[in-house]
C-alpha cells in the first residue's frame, strides 16, 4: 500500500505532464524547437511544417560507415544519407531508375559499364559529386574487406576519365552489375571530407582506414537526409538536408528511428501516436489495426524468405546423401499449413532459392505437400522405417517467423514419414560455429536480398565452387559429390547475356537448385507496412528497404 502510495505520489508529481496526453504543449521540448503539436489523444496532428517523423524499429545496425555497414536498417540509413548512381523502382525490382547518374550503359558482353553523373548533384557541404568520389567510394568498399565488400568482386578497373564520366571494367561478364550498383552499400561518399577524417580507399584500407568511429556521429553524403545523432540501442536521428539537390525535396525536418524491440510494442506506440511508422509488426497482429482510423495498414509482398537447409556432408547426415531422400523431405512438408500457422496465412510459397518477383522465379513450379510421394521415395531408398536427424537451428524470430515454431511444424510433418528431427535451438554464434565446423544435417536460416539480381542466390546457395551452402552442405569444390557443373555453366551464361536469354538461364538455375534439394524455402512472408494515416509514400523496396526521401505528409 505504501508502495502504491509512492507510485501515486510520483504520478501526482507528474500530473499534467503526461507526455502522451499533452493538449497544448509541443512534443519536442527540452530546449529544442517545437516540432510537432499533439492532440488530446497524443496523436500527432498533420501540421506539415515542423512535423518530425518517428519510426519504431528493432534496429540491427552494425555500422553507420557506408563501406562497413551491412544490415536491414543500414539499407534505409544508407539510402537516406548517401546516394547510389542508380536505384530500383520500389514497384518493380527489375526496373532501374536514375539517381546520381543521368545515363548508364553496359557493353554487349557485360564487361564494361559507363555512367554519366548528374552535374547538379552536390554533397551536403555544397561540393559537387564527381567521378573521383565514386571511384574512391567503391575502392574503399572493396578494400576495407567488410561484409558488403563481396559486391565488388570480379572488378578489374575503375576509371574516371573526367569529372562527370565514370566507368567500371570486369574480368568476366557481369550482367548483375547494374542491380549491384543500385544496392545501398554502393552509395557515394564525399571523399575529401572522409579522407580528412582518416578514411582510406587504398589496398590496405582494411587496416589503414580509421574513420568508422567518425561515421558514427557524422555523415558525408548527398542524400535527402544527414546524420544528426546516433545512440546505440536507443535512437538514430536524421536531419533534413535543406540543400538537397534532387527534384523531390525531403519533407520531414527530422526523422527519428526509435529502438523498439518487439512487434507488440511497435504496434502500441503506433496506435498511441508515439510512432508514425512501424515496419516490423507481426503478421498475426494486423487484425488489431483494423478499424483504427489513425493508422493505415497494408500488407505487401516481400523478397525475404526463411528456409531449411539439408546438408548431406554434415556429421550424422549420411542418409541425406541420397538425393531421393532429400526430395522425400521436400515433399513431406506441408507448406500451406506452415504458412497458415507461422504467418497467419500472409505469406507465399516459393519454388527455389530465387525469391518470388525476381528474374527466373516466375515459371518455376511451387512446392506441394505430397505425403504418399514422400513415403514412396523413402521406400524406394530402403528408408521406409525412417531415421533420426539432428536439426540445430538459431533461435530467432525473423520476418515474423518464429524459428522454433517453424521447426516444430516441420518436425510434425516429417514424423509422418518416420523421419525424426532432434530439435536443438541455439544462439546464433553457436550455430555459426557448428555450421562451419562439422555441419548441421537440417537447419533453418533466412535471406533478404542485398540487390535485385538473382546471381546472388546462385553464388550463395548453388552447388558451385565458392558457394557458401555448397561448402556447408558438404561440397564446395569442383568434382565433389554435390558439385553441379551445370549450375556453373548456367550462371556464366546468365552473367554474359541479357533479355530473355538471361531470364531463361535464371529459370534453369532455379530448377537446378530445386533438383539439388539442398535449400528448401518454407515461406516467403509478406510485410506489414503500418503508418500514421497522414503519412504518404510508404513502400518496401528490394534494394533499399525503405527510401525515406519518398515519404511525405497528406494535405
Amino acid at each position: 500500500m505504501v508502495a502504491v502510495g509512492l507510485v501515486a505520489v510520483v504520478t501526482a508529481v507528474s500530473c499534467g505532464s503526461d507526455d502522451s496526453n499533452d493538449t497544448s504543449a509541443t512534443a519536442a521540448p527540452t530546449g529544442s524547437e517545437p516540432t510537432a503539436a499533439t492532440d488530446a489523444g497524443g496523436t500527432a496532428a498533420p501540421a506539415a511544417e515542423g512535423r518530425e517523423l518517428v519510426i519504431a524499429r528493432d534496429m540491427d545496425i552494425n555500422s553507420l560507415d557506408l563501406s562497413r555497414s551491412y544490415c536491414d536498417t543500414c539499407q534505409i540509413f544508407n539510402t537516406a544519407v548517401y546516394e547510389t548512381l542508380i536505384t530500383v523502382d520500389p514497384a518493380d525490382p527489375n526496373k532501374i531508375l536514375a539517381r546520381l547518374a543521368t545515363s548508364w550503359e553496359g557493353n554487349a558482353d557485360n564487361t564494361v559499364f559507363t555512367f554519366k553523373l548528374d552535374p547538379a548533384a552536390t554533397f551536403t557541404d555544397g561540393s559537387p559529386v564527381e567521378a573521383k568520389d565514386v571511384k574512391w567510394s567503391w575502392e574503399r568498399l572493396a578494400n576495407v574487406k567488410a561484409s558488403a565488400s563481396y559486391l565488388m568482386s570480379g572488378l578489374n578497373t575503375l576509371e574516371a576519365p573526367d569529372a562527370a564520366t565514370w566507368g567500371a571494367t570486369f574480368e568476366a561478364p557481369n550482367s548483375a552489375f547494374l542491380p549491384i550498383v543500385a544496392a545501398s552499400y554502393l552509395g557515394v561518399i564525399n571523399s575529401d571530407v572522409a579522407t580528412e577524417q582518416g578514411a582510406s580507399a587504398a589496398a590496405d584500407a582494411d587496416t589503414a582506414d580509421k574513420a568508422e568511429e567518425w561515421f558514427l556521429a557524422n555523415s558525408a553524403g548527398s542524400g535527402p537526409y544527414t546524420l544528426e545523432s546516433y545512440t546505440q540501442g536507443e535512437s538514430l536521428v536524421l536531419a533534413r538536408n535543406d540543400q538537397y539537390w534532387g527534384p523531390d525535396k525531403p519533407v520531414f525536418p527530422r526523422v527519428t528511428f526509435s529502438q523498439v524491440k518487439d512487434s507488440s510494442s511497435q504496434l502500441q506506440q503506433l496506435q498511441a501516436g508515439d510512432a508514425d511508422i512501424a515496419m516490423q509488426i507481426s503478421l498475426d497482429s494486423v487484425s488489431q489495426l483494423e478499424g483504427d482510423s489513425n493508422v493505415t495498414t497494408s500488407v505487401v509482398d516481400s523478397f525475404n524468405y526463411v528456409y531449411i537447409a539439408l546438408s548431406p556432408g554434415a556429421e550424422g547426415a549420411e542418409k541425406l546423401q541420397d538425393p531421393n531422400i532429400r526430395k522425400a523431405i521436400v515433399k513431406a512438408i506441408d507448406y500451406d499449413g506452415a504458412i497458415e500457422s507461422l504467418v497467419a496465412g500472409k505469406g507465399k510459397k516459393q519454388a527455389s532459392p530465387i525469391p518470388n518477383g525476381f528474374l527466373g522465379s516466375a515459371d518455376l513450379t511451387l512446392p506441394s505437400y505430397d505425403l504418399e510421394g514422400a513415403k514412396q521415395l523413402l521406400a524406394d531408398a530402403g528408408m521406409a522405417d525412417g531415421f533420426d536427424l539432428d536439426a540445430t537451428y538459431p533461435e530467432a524470430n525473423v520476418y515474423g517467423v518464429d524459428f522454433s515454431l517453424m521447426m516444430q511444424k516441420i518436425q510434425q510433418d516429417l514424423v509422418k514419414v518416420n523421419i525424426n528431427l532432434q530439435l536443438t535451438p541455439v544462439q546464433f554464434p553457436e550455430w555459426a560455429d557448428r555450421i562451419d565446423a562439422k555441419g548441421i544435417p537440417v537447419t533453418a536460416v533466412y535471406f533478404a536480398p542485398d540487390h535485385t539480381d538473382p546471381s546472388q542466390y546462385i553464388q550463395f546457395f548453388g552447388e558451385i565452387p565458392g558457394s557458401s551452402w555448397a561448402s556447408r552442405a558438404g561440397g564446395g569444390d569442383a568434382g565433389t559429390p554435390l558439385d553441379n557443373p551445370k549450375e556453373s555453366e548456367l550462371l556464366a551464361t546468365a552473367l554474359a547475356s541479357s533479355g530473355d536469354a538471361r531470364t531463361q538461364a535464371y529459370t534453369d538455375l532455379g530448377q537446378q537448385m530445386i533438383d539439388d534439394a539442398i535449400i528448401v524455402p518454407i515461406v516467403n512472408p509478406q510485410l506489414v507496412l503500418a503508418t500514421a494515416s497522414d503519412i504518404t509514400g510508404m513502400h518496401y523496396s528490394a534494394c533499399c528497404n525503405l527510401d525515406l526521401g519518398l515519404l511525405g505528409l497528406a494535405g
Partner: protein
Amino acid sequence: MRRFILRRLAVMPLLLLGIVTIAFCISRLIPANPLASIVGERALNNDKIVAAAKARWGLNGSLPEQYFIYIKNLLTGDLGTSFRTRQPVTDDLLHRLPATLELAAGALLIGGVGGVALGAYAASRKDKPADHFSRGFALLGSSLPVFWIGLVFLFVLYARLGWFPGPGRLPPRTKPPDHVTGFYTIDSLLDGNFTLFRQSLHRLVLPCFVLGWAYMGQLSRLVRAAMLDEINADYVRTARAKGLAERLVMRRHVLRNAWLPTLTILGFSFAQLLTASVLTETIFQWNGIGSYAVQAANTLDFPAVNGVSLFAGLAFLLANLTTDVLYAVADPKIRLA
C-alpha cells in the same frame, strides 16, 4: 575502520582480475563463433573478409596471446572496442550507467521504502486482514515474472488506459537534456526544464515499480519476520510498561533493532538491481547496462561481455564493502578490523 576499508580496497584489484579472467575464459571457450555477428552469416565462408575481421578485432592470435593483450590494455583502462557498437566499451558503459543507476535507484526507493513500510505494517497487524493483504501483495511481487508484469502494465496502463507513458526514457520527438550527469531527471533540472523533469520522472515510474516490486516483496517479508522476532523481546515489553505509545514502541525500538538484517539485504539489493535490470530494461526500452549485457551475450561480443562482467563484479564488491561499513555504523557492538 580505516584499515579495514583500505585492506578491502587493496584486495579488490585481485578479485576483479579473477572475475575478468573467468569471464574471458568462459566467453572464449564456449563453442561459438563471434564472427557471425561481426561479418554476418553470409560472409562466414569468405576467407578474405573473415581474415580481415579476425585481424581487426584481435581474434587471430592464440588464446594466451589474446588474454595477455587484453590484460595489458585493461591496465591502461582500455576495455577494448565493442564488436557490435564499434565504440570503446568504456564509453558504452559510461554512457549507459546513468540510465541503469537511475532505474536502480528508483526501484530501490520504491522497493526499499515500500518493503520496510509494508513489512512493519504487516508485523504490527499480525494475522489480521491487513497482514494477509500485505503478505499477498508482497508474494505477488516476488512471484510474478518481471517480463510478464512489465508487458501487462504497458498494455493496460499505457496502451489501453493511457495513464502512464510508453517505453523509453523520454517521450518521442524529445531531445534529451544537455549531458551533465546522464541522469535525465537531474540534467533536466540543471537545464531548468521542469516539463522535461516531470516527463522523465513519469517515465521512471512503471519500470521502477516493476523492478522494485519483486524486491519489495522479499524485503517486506524479511522486515516482518525480523520485527516479529523483536516485538516480544523484554526491552519492548519494558517500553510498553513505561506507557510508551505503541507507534513509538514500534518505530523507535522494534523497527530500529530489526533494521540490521535489513541493511544487509539493502546493500546487496542495489548491486542486484544494477545487474538484474536486464529484463526490465529490455521491456521498457531502457538503454542501460542490462540491455547492453543481453545484446553482448547474444552476439558473443567479447569485449562488451568482459566489460559488463567487470562492472558487475565491481558493483558487488563495492556494495559488499558499503554494507559492512554501514553495518558497523548502525551497530556500535560490531567492530571491523
